[in-house]
């Protein structure tokens, strides 16, 4: 099997799942689709490492994480500017339906990136704490701490009558 066929099969098997996970990181479906699409393009451009990976899905998840990270770094800055009133979001780009899922995506976006990654990998990607730790390169205890902090913050953010403290977006383990 040539490299392109391998990437094509992986694209068919994992694309949707990876987009779902990355959408939890970046909080936007279209952006998640684009990030995962970019990740597959990078893999196809240099497939050698991918072909030798023991776990193709894990390898691709990390590739997508790398792409997403560059984006939510910019997005985090953008979000801070929005909250400070220095940037106005066009009405068309704000979800008009206040569904629970949009609320959860929005709440995820309020977590600090390291906390958000741990929560998404554990709860959306269904990775164990050990797998999350291996993926992020941090101790399992750190992952547990981030998960505990993330769950507590999400519960607060999802409460209808609670004001979201901006500070969560600035601290992480």
């Amino acid at each position, binding site marked *: 099997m040539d490299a392109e066929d391998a990437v094509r099969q992986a694209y068919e098997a994992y694309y*949707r799942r990876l987009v779902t996970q990355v959408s939890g990181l970046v909080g936007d479906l279209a952006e998640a689709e684009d990030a995962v699409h970019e990740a597959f393009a990078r893999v196809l451009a240099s497939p050698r490492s991918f072909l030798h990976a023991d776990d193709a899905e894990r390898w691709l998840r990390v590739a997508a994480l790398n792409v997403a990270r560059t984006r939510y770094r910019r997005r985090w800055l953008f979000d801070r500017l929005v909250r400070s009133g220095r940037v106005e979001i066009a009405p068309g*780009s704000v979800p008009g339906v206040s569904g629970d899922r949009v609320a959860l995506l929005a709440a995820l976006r309020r977590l600090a990136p390291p906390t958000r990654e741990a929560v998404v990998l554990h709860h959306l990607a269904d990775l164990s704490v050990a797998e999350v730790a291996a993926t992020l*390169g941090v101790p399992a205890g750190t992952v547990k701490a981030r998960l505990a902090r993330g769950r507590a913050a999400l519960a607060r953010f999802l409460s209808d009558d609670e004001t979201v403290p901006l500070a969560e977006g600035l601290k992480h383990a």
Partner: protein
Amino acid sequence: MREPDFERLRSEVGDAVRQPDFFTVRRRARQVRRRRAVTSGAVFLATVLAATSFGYAVRSGPADGGPVGSAASPTDGWPRMSAVTGTGDELYTLMESCENCRAQLYASADDGASWQRRTEPPAAKNSSGMSTVTSLAPGVVVWRDARTVTGAEMVGQTLFDHLSITTDGGRSWRRSAVDTSPVAAVPAGTQPVTCEFLEIKTCVYAAVDPVTGRFAPLARQPVGIKVPDASPFTINMPQDGPLWVSGMDPTTHKPAVATSPDRGQTWRTHVFTDAATISFGKEQQAVAWPLLPQVAAGPGGTAYVRTSRNQTEQDTHYTADGGLTWHGGDTIHDARMHGAFVAADGRPIVRTDTGFLAGDSTGRYTPVPVSGYPETPTQQAQLISPHRYLAAAENGPYLSEDGRTWRQVPLP
């Protein structure tokens, strides 16, 4: 305080995900290679910037950095064919003249010897620029414009893509519509579609009225079979044969094939109990596509099915009586299969990593020469009329009268 419901988030977002054709990945990969070539002289500077800007990095995977400016020429790779489809003597192709140009529709009634320009439907609002066409009957073509959706649309579960349909070969278009009243059978001369194709969740299969261009769900859906979303090969219906759909047993997750001898009015399902269980992954979202059964349907009630033991061991099965009785064929080792079809001589042809195999009436598969088939097809061979097979590669469509000898079709 409310608890976050990740399971529903996974489910709803997973349903909303749109997956572009693989050719778009290939196109983007070319741009990535060009970017890397242009920026290779600035690696040292980039490394220093990366080391000082990024607080942490992931392990056990690629260390590819963020995007850099594209150096791709706007004309490199264009004009190009982005899609091809056909039924009977008709071929339809979408041609893009530049990267951001809307696709243009061409039709041919003489195997591509000449092409006629046809009209396109109005562009969808927020179109992503990715369009495809699917022929369902002579003169009946569906045009799909993939749209960029907002978060509100994602949650509202509105239609994500814009579907238009023509019943006069692309001379006029209307917005596709789905009736709520079901139809008893797939109209003669038409191909059924998955309801997922229409982005409706209340049925599994639907049919098109070739006169009005309206869709309607089949009154009787296949039973005892679960058809995973977005499966790339769920329907197979030769013009003079039964309707075949592939999926899995909803309880055991074993591969299953459902057959309808009367265009969807009655169904029978067979489960391949010896095959590998089709895994879903821990979060029950993405099915392992390569483990789904693939059907190559021939004339009458003949069909050949491939099931997988694992990624490189494939079992073959065949039936000659419309799925009433099944027989086991060869197990093919150390090869991945990339599509199958039944050639004009009635033998199933399977494309593998290393070449083509042809089956015989006893289920034995042996290497067979197939000439002129594209090396890297973007679209596997399919039968579009009793004696016309269509495949495609980046450089254009390929046609064959017997499935064994192929020729490239000139582009418009």
